[in-house]
């Protein structure tokens, strides 16, 4: 098992040194002259011939991080002081929520205990925006520069949303409504750690579980992307997905299209190849937190007004950051 982990990490470093590209290498021009059914096949073969190690690494890393992160320490402090809670929400959300089913309970937990709606909101926005899998894949597939910018942008937007929502009247009302008075004493939690070999095994199993859930969508996404690259004319992308309009359009379609499947990264890469600007690409990637499924789950706990507020802030944030990044990197 250790050998397997070392192999994965080692091979990734090796492939880096040998300067393999881990991203899809096919360019739109390569698709000309292929029959319709050949397009996805050619694309998938091309992708997996060098992308597999990157995916393997991402899943193994996610499994290991999730297993070994001290969850009880985090949850203990999350319910307390405001500043600590904001900090923890930012730092820990990306690691805690590789599995989507933990998002809503943790959101509720932070909201009901002492920290209140601000940190809960920050956590909720931070978690999908910068979870460890999507950052790893953004870095590998698109560029580490963009992955870095994505993290910074997510932190700022998540903090802003948390603080703003906690100041609104309806945010405060929600907080009051949900306050739970009797706080659990930490003596009720005594985590018993199993031996190391069992933990490593369960880390790998979890990595495999995430892979099993995400890969089918990821494959479908790749098929879709192959058609986009093959048939979407470059001048359409050049006209609509650059400049200020590009950022606006990208930020709007990025939201509803988002599925927790990392497809948006590959699709973004595809459109970037076709001439989408870097600014629009960032807006596109930041579109996830206000996706519809997520909002629905949350609206069962808090009021609609709160959901709408945070969606508006997330959208504004993605536009502002898209424009700023585009302007700074001279690619608008």
């Amino acid at each position, binding site marked *: 098992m250790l050998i397997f982990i070392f192999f994965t990490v080692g091979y990734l470093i090796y492939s880096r040194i040998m300067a393999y590209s881990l991203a899809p290498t096919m360019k739109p021009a390569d698709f000309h002259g292929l029959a319709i059914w050949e397009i996805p096949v050619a694309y998938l073969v091309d992708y997996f011939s060098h992308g597999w190690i990157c995916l393997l690494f991402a899943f193994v890393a996610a499994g290991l991080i*999730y*297993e070994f992160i001290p*969850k*009880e320490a*985090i*949850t*203990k402090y*999350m*319910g307390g002081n405001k500043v600590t809670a904001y900090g923890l929400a930012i730092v820990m959300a990306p690691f*805690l929520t590789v*599995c989507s*089913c*933990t998002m*809503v*309970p*943790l*959101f*509720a*937990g*932070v909201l*009901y*205990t002492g920290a209140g709606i601000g940190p809960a909101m920050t956590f909720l926005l931070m978690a999908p925006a910068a979870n460890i899998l999507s950052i790893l894949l953004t870095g590998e597939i698109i560029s580490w520069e963009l992955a870095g910018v994505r993290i910074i942008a997510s932190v700022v937007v998540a903090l802003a949303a948390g603080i703003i929502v906690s100041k609104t009247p309806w945010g405060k009302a929600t907080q009051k409504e*949900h306050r*739970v*008075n*009797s*706080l*659990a004493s*930490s003596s*009720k*939690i*005594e*985590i*018993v750690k*199993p031996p190391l070999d*069992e933990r490593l095994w*369960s880390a790998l*199993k*979890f990595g495999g*579980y995430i892979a099993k859930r995400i890969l089918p969508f990821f494959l479908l996404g790749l098929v879709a992307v192959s058609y986009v690259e093959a048939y979407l004319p470059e001048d359409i992308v050049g006209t609509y997905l650059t400049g200020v309009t590009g950022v606006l359009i990208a930020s709007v379609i990025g939201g509803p299209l988002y599925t927790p499947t990392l497809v948006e990264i590959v699709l973004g890469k595809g459109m970037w190849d076709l001439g989408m600007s870097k600014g629009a690409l960032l807006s596109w990637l930041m579109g996830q937190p206000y996706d519809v499924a997520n909002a629905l789950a949350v609206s069962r*706990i808090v009021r609609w007004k709160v959901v709408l507020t945070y969606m508006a802030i997330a959208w504004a944030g993605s536009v502002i950051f898209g424009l700023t990044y585009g302007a700074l990197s001279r690619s608008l």
Partner: protein
Amino acid sequence: MKEVVVEVIGVDPPCKRCQATYKSVEEAALTLKAKDIDMKIFKLTAQSKDTIAKYGVLVPPALAINNVVKVMGRVPEKKEVERLILTTVK
């Protein structure tokens, strides 16, 4: 016959990993019955107010034995559940 109260804390609607945890617990209960231990298994919802009032913020799936959370944020294997319960009963 020794009694042990086991709470499986998951989410509602149930997620796969919470169901897997519940299954480990059920299987462990069958084995432990032979050793004269009676497990009372309850399901708790992690995002409900009652659960949070009792245990605070949790990362599901979690497992509490006799009102003490022993496992959090991971799926325990059957033998791990058995081991935890045997140490609690002792």
